[in-house]
């Protein structure tokens, strides 16, 4: 076991982690621990763009952006946070441009902007061009640009280090951050990082679904580590299904495709979104479009022999426009489906995409222990966190924004904290939990296999915790996940070695997914209303009287070591906007 000491440790090198690192490296001795090489992070998969009311191409302002964010999130958004997001968006985009990001340009040489779902002029009047983009590889450009600037700033990375535990020490009855424990993939060695401040920026947890736009590595390791150390998870029932994933594969086709004029059609060729969202049509918010697609499918208007998908039609757009604005996604259609998007529509279905919930933080990125108390020295930013700027449903282009705005904020706050705080003593035998977990899996002779449990988990999540939910489906999911967690105790791996043991790490990642799936299903079961991405067929209306509040889930362990989940709630911060019915 090796011990390292840094002022600030950042877990994750996606957009949020590297944006934080650029700030904190200037201010404190910082290490970034990442299970992937930084440029492999899933921020690189983001396509469509990053929202900011630059008003480069038409009238726009941050207040309209704030409103759209609040409405998009079905009023579960904390409005103070949304206002910060929309206001700081402008500098966030300009910062990236100055760091070198090659945005697409207007004829006048300024940053070009395009339409995106849910973004409107003057509180819903008409779609507005707010998304700043670089072709359909905006996330790639953000990730590359941030990595380039990390190289420039000399940020210190520990690549292929998996953080498996968070260390908290109690000082005078207060839980404080002491560091993290990481597993070095190359050698199998365990490293303890003592730190004054820790920032979790470890991304989402979409891999508990099968049809998903998420990378294999998005397994919620950060959320699970915090959870196991008794920290709450907020709003986990809100998971976004993006309307246009490649049929059966889940690979994302950006909403930018509809922003450029693409149209969704059912088997009769009908532009069905006109029925569900007369104003915004194909550019209504994602939860609305995903439900509309499944309504078409259920009512027998789906395409293909099994009627299980609809089409994204780009055939009316000029090939030059597709080549210039959507080169990557048109190539995905060619590569993975053998379809030529110039002439043929693309089969799509909703795909599990984005976790609105996560580790609760305030607007400085400080992690919350309950509704109000912060954990000194602990921060979270990006998809792992829940500020909450996305509420019950995130608007497209608001996550690339979130990771930049709150990544920067967390980086500054953590480094400033580290500048004045002292190290907290490490708990006794700091690596014990990880050592025990790794040794147990490596030496287990159990008969259960990771692949089977993971498949069963994904099946139950795809079937029961999807776009449409009921008491019955959610109970089924809760029961099945509990059974899978029991089976997981008996799981073994084939690779017993130390070197690059990805077999072992996949087993650990599965453990994380199981715990987070359980929190998701339990939180969803208790929310007896429909709001944003959480749609209950047995409670189809939004219920502001009982449920205008964030879910806060806590892990409880009784004297016999039995685990359970306790749910509590946190008020929503409302400033300017009163809840209204959401129409697009």
């Amino acid at each position, binding site marked *: 076991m090796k011990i390292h000491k840094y002022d600030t440790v950042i877990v994750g090198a996606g957009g949020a982690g590297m944006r934080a690192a650029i700030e904190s490296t200037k201010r404190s001795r910082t290490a970034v621990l990442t299970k992937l090489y930084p440029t*492999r992070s*899933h921020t690189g998969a983001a396509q469509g763009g990053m929202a900011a009311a630059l008003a480069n191409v038409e009238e726009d302002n941050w207040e309209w952006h704030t409103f759209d964010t609040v409405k998009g999130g079905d009023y579960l958004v904390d409005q103070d946070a949304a206002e910060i997001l929309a206001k700081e968006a402008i500098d966030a985009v300009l910062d990236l441009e100055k760091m070198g990001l090659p945005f697409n340009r207007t004829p006048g040489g300024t*940053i070009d902007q395009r339409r995106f779902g849910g973004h409107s002029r003057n509180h819903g009047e008409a779609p507005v061009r707010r998304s700043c983009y670089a072709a359909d590889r905006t996330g*790639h*450009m953000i990730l590359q640009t941030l990595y*380039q600037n990390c190289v420039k700033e000399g940020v210190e990375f520990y690549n292929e280090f998996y953080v498996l535990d968070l260390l908290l020490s109690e000082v005078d009855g207060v839980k404080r951050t002491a560091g993290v424990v990481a597993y070095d993939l190359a050698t199998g060695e365990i490293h303890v990082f003592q730190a004054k401040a820790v920032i979790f920026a470890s991304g989402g947890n979409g891999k508990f679904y099968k049809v998903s736009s998420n990378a294999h590595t998005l397994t919620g390791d950060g959320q699970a580590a915090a959870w196991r150390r008794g920290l709450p998870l907020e709003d986990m029932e809100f998971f976004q299904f993006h309307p246009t994933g490649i049929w059966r594969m889940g690979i994302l086709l950006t909403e930018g495709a509809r922003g450029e004029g693409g149209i969704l059609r059912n088997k009769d060729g009908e532009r069905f979104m006109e029925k569900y969202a007369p104003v915004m049509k194909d550019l209504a918010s994602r939860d609305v479009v995903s439900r509309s697609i499944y309504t078409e499918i259920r009512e027998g208007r789906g395409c293909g022999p099994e009627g299980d998908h609809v089409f994204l039609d780009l055939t009316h757009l000029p090939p030059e426009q597709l080549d210039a604005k959507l080169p990557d996604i048109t190539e*995905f259609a060619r590569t993975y489906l053998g379809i030529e998007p110039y002439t043929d529509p693309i089969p799509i279905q909703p795909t599990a995409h984005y976790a609105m919930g996560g580790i609760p933080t305030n607007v400085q990125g400080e992690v919350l222990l309950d509704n109000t108390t912060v954990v000194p020295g602990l921060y979270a930013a990006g998809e792992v966190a829940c500020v909450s700027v996305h509420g019950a449903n995130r608007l497209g282009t608001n996550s690339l924004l979130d990771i930049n705005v709150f990544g920067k904020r967390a980086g500054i706050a953590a480094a400033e904290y580290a500048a004045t705080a002292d190290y907290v003593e490490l708990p006794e035998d700091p690596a014990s939990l990880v050592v025990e977990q790794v040794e147990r899996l490596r030496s287990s002779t159990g008969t259960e296999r990771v692949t089977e449990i993971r498949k069963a988990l994904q099946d139950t999540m795809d079937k029961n915790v999807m776009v449409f939910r009921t008491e019955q489906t959610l109970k089924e999911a809760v029961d099945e996940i509990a059974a899978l967690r029991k089976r997981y105790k008996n799981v073994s791996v084939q690779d017993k070695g130390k*070197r690059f043991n990805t077999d072992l790490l996949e087993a650990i990642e599965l453990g994380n997914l199981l715990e987070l799936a359980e929190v998701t299903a339990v939180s969803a079961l208790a929310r007896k209303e429909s709001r944003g991405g959480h749609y209950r067929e047995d409670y189809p209306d939004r219920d502001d009287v009982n449920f205008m509040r964030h879910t806060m889930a806590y892990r409880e362990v009784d004297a016999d070591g039995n685990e359970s989940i306790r749910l509590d709630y946190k008020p929503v911060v409302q400033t300017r906007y009163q809840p209204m019915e959401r129409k697009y």
Partner: protein
Amino acid sequence: MTTTLDKTEGLGPAVAGAAPYITATFRIRRFNPEVAEEAAWEDFEIEIDPKERVLDALHKIKWEMDGTLTFRRSCAHGICGSDAMRINGRNRLACKTLIKDINPEKPITVEAIKGLTVLKDLVVDMEPFFQAYRDVMPFLVTTGNEPTRERLQSAEDRERFDDTTKCILCAACTSSCPVFWNDGQYFGPAAIVNAHRFIFDSRDEAGEQRLEILNDRDGVWRCRTTFNCTDACPRGIEVTKAIQEVKRALITRRF
């Protein structure tokens, strides 16, 4: 059950109907110094839909037959650059290569990319590759006061380096280059691609410095224009053309 979502199982064939599974043999170059000093080929026979990716086949082998098989991957759709490998003797991304396109009637060979030290099975040491990248100053350099708003750039100027912004640092190009195989000191195509991305960016002011770096003994002049890199690039970047443009800029000092 009330939803219709139970039809979404499996990666499945892209065209519905009977799943046209085939039996394919994957001949994989295995190496694990914890077990044996020498690398060796091992055959795996699997049933698989030929429209699936080579990455799906590797997962099937790892998940159902041999958990010790080791490779890197993340995004599974050609965007993160994790899984460059030599498939049937050519560098490709496993996640962007469909089985039907690589002659599955014969054994499909899969081995680590060449020129970088193999650490285990298909995993190589990427450090020298990233070091070459870092050595070309892969970041925007400007002088003077920053403008309040964005720097302006015409669409034409932006287009000038568009191709080389697509790079995902997968190393398929560099590890297909015979010069790199023979001499690991050569910067390699990927580093030059990333230098190009900044040299031809109208906002940047360090072109001269980068050109000097690439004028080095181990720089662009080592390139023998074999086009292996261009053929290998999964992002369709015209790598050889970018290298030629850098060479020309070195001669004319205009860029």
